[in-house]
């Protein structure tokens, strides 16, 4: 398992967790994939993208509301 640093934009907080891909990150954080964009090194990635140890993943909220 790889240790991933995850920045959750909506809550402006960083969490560290073990995951092998972005889908696992969302499942562990109970975040609906419909509500976020996944950004790794400032590039958008899909849920199935494999993550490496010490990767920094950003979860950008897609909900604006006016």
């Amino acid at each position, binding site marked *: 398992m790889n240790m991933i640093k995850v920045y959750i*934009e*909506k809550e402006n907080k960083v969490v560290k967790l073990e995951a092998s891909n972005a889908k696992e990150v969302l499942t562990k954080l109970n975040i*609906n*994939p*419909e*509500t976020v*964009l996944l*950004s790794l090194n400032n*590039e*958008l*990635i*899909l*849920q199935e993208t494999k993550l490496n140890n010490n990767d920094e993943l950003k979860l*950008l*909220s*897609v*909900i*604006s*509301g*006016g």
Partner: protein
Amino acid sequence: MPCKNCLEKPVIQLTNNNIKLCKQHFIRYFERKVLNTIHNYKLIDKNDKVGVAVSGGKDSLTVLNILTMLRNKTRKFSIEAIAIDEGIKGYRDKTLQDAKKFCKDNKIKLSIFSYKEEFGSTLDNFLKKSKFKACSVCGPFRRYLLNKKSKELGFTKLATGHNLDDEAQTIMMNYFRRNIETSARLGPITGIIKDKRFVRRIKPLYFMTQKEVATYAFLKGLTSEFLECPHSTDSYRGEIMKMLNDFEAKYPGTKHSIITSFMEILPMLKENFKGYIQINSCKNCGEPTSQEICQTCKLVEILKNKAKNVQAHS
């Protein structure tokens, strides 16, 4: 798995058909689909003066970006931007910076109107003095100002950033609240009948999902950060949004199906409710309303009285 059209890394998987697209092919897909919506539903006529309602968020700046491209290419219509500053600290003040920057960089005239100047108080202050939910005050105020100021600015159409998710939520809200007549006014171009007291609203992002719009805005660098209105999840709409997102995650394509089904019955709804429409002019402000006094004038009166009572008891 690479992009459907090339060997590049995909940036998105489209939920309605499972296609994966890279940055270049997604941008091409997105712009083509929005331009097709504008063309197929005749959203813009020759010589239209289109006002674009901008909040500075990803949806409105995406609309403004694509309409600017189309205007530059065709030179058949003109555009200006209009923004409403509700007075939501930490949110609107930030997003308006992005709107101002985009308009300055692209030489687009931007007119900003605020609740404080028009109604005497910011939304934040109105909410402190009353028990109203934010959206029940903000919605009528914003619609009122956008229509009134669009007429004053001479706009023939008003483009908004409403996307497929917004519309699917509104359709479900109207069903749940037995408010079908309101649904008859929906669609890529709003209204059941033409009336000079209303500036018709057009929704170029009607068939684009929230996630697609966010992806486009990110790839184009249109917003500095993706901010969410602090009041958006408190509302009835917020609950419907959560429900639809849960369904979409479990059954991909749900939101598209809602819109596709709705588009099939929309012509019948419009026809059915044509005879029911009665539009009065508000006795107080002259703006269109279905009642004698419009909702905005009623709300302003209530909020001003509450403010007076608060002062009297303090």
